[in-house]
């Protein structure tokens, strides 16, 4: 029936729009994971907290009276500093630690940041104003907010810049070199500590940008970081831990799958989607969609 298919198509389109928007957040978070992992073989469980901090601090700066763009800028830069501090004070001192130890350290950092946010801002939910207008746009019978376009546009730009950074600049390549072989990187004169610092700062920056982009639509609170972090990690695994562009693709895919699942199957289990994907990928193709397989020498 023409009407039925039309309605399904509208629904599908709506879910896709929502999915890609949310997926962009996951993509940026996942990208942050991938960058840190590429630089240091560490999975930073605090990645989601950068998103939360970006959004929450933007709300705060706005509340203090700063003009909107300035508040956004301060929030993003401030979170970047938190990322640098994380590397300097938590990761670097524990440089030779085992994998389990480092995981626990970053989890500790995530919880610490969450606790700090709880202390500073309480349990309330906050929203940022939309960047431009709040008037919905219509594509067929599906609605799209201008904010959605902001999310997509800024994400695309950021991803492109990050790609350029790693592919074309010396610093970017130096960071990748550290992941491949830290000793060799040292020997050719790369300041490994500085590279790691940059990697963490960059990841925090990306997280914060994702945070301020999505806060007008999805709101934010002190506890928002955990789920976002986990889903971003899911995106990174889906794309393949070694591949930054894979993480982006994974994030978008995850957002869409989640949205379709919530729409067509059950909205309560929406969050479970991400974790189900993690389990399936880890069981059947741990190297993800685009990742490389690592060989182990005996």
């Amino acid at each position, binding site marked *: 029936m023409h009407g039925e298919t039309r309605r399904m198509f509208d629904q599908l389109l709506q879910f896709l729009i929502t999915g890609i928007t949310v997926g962009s957040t996951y993509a940026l978070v996942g990208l942050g994971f991938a960058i840190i992992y590429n630089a240091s073989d560490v*999975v930073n469980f605090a990645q989601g907290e950068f998103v939360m901090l970006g959004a929450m601090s933007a709300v705060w700066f706005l509340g203090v009276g700063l003009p909107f763009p300035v508040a956004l800028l301060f929030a993003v830069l401030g979170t970047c500093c938190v990322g640098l501090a994380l590397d300097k004070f*938590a990761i670097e*001192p*524990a440089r030779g*630690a*085992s*994998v*389990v*130890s*480092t*995981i*626990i*350290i970053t*989890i*500790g*950092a*995530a*919880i*610490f*940041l*969450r*606790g*700090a946010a*709880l*202390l500073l801002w309480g349990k309330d939910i906050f929203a940022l104003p939309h960047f431009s207008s709040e008037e919905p746009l219509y594509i067929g019978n599906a609605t799209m907010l201008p904010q959605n376009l902001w999310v997509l546009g800024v994400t695309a730009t950021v991803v492109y810049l990050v790609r350029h950074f790693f592919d074309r600049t010396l610093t970017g390549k130096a960071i990748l070199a550290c992941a491949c072989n830290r000793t060799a990187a040292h020997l050719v004169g790369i300041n490994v500590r500085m590279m790691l610092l940059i990697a963490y700062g960059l990841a925090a920056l990306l997280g914060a940008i994702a945070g301020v982009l999505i806060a007008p639509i999805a709101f934010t609170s002190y506890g928002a970081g*955990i789920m976002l972090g*986990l889903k971003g*990690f899911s995106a990174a*695994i889906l794309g393949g*831990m070694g591949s930054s562009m894979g993480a982006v693709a994974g994030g978008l895919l995850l957002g869409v799958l989640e949205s379709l699942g919530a729409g067509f199957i*059950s909205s*309560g*289990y929406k*969050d*479970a989607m991400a*974790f*189900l994907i*993690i*389990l399936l990928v*880890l*069981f059947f193709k*741990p190297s993800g969609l685009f990742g490389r397989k690592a060989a182990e020498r*005996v």
Partner: protein
Amino acid sequence: MRRFYGFFVFAALVLALPLAFPDNYFVTVVGVTIGLHIVLAVSLNLFMGFAGQISLGHAAFFGMGAYTSAILTSRYGIDPWLAMLVALAVVAVIANAIARPVLKLRGHYLAMATLGFGIIVNIVMVQEVDWTGGPDGMSGIPGLSIFGWELDSDLKWYGVVAVVMLASVWISLNIVDSRAGRALRAVHGSEVAAQMMGIDTARAKAQVFVLSALLACFVGSLFAHQQAFVSPDSFNFFFSIELVTMVVLGGLGSTFGAVFGAVVLTLLPELLVVFEDYEVLILGAILMTIMIFLPQGLFVGLVQGARSLLARRRESALVGS
């Protein structure tokens, strides 16, 4: 053998405490919670400390025990002890099923897989309202009685939980210095060498994973009957992290370390009620500080420090004379 002197002292302390302070809230009520947490930490230590693995989803097995017991006893009127056996069987099946694929993973991937598992279980607890009562939880869970002896006072619960807790500590100490325990610790040390010594490492890891899950499930059932109420909030990701913190705080691989970690982390929020807002912050700070500066754990670090202090005293005494 040395380890067991400590055990007897510990057991004596635990059993004497309620005799000395029969009406003290901290002993009878908090003591029960501490006891349950100790079993959870000790069981997690078997998996994380001995076998060197990581699980961020241990709370899920605790919750499965609690909810299975709760549902079977309050909705279907089944005898609590029978319900407990069913819960153990259910967890045995599930843990065995996921053990092989999950334990093929290492490091971060293993952490994420166990995390994912724990969160999915928690989401099911929240979503399946008809079975579990949803996010508001389930109340009206019947009490427990042992051959007609009703567990209707805090003191009685303390006794039962203390016995269970001491049994689990005893089990853990037995395992450490046994062929099977050494095999696990060997897997932690070098998986390839362990294999060359004839150890089926995949099977060893799966076995200890299931054992730790069963212990958690058992105390989950006890928890449900003791509280007469369960809700998904008690079995979430955050609690899994708390359990990891307990094991890490004490020292991975040390049974008494796990006991120490459980005691400290359960008492801390009770003592810092004033600082409830700071609780999350402090937990995070503890995790970071310990793993950065004292990765062998606070308890193990203290014991080692005490030992070397005594050794130095003995040396200087010899030199002096």
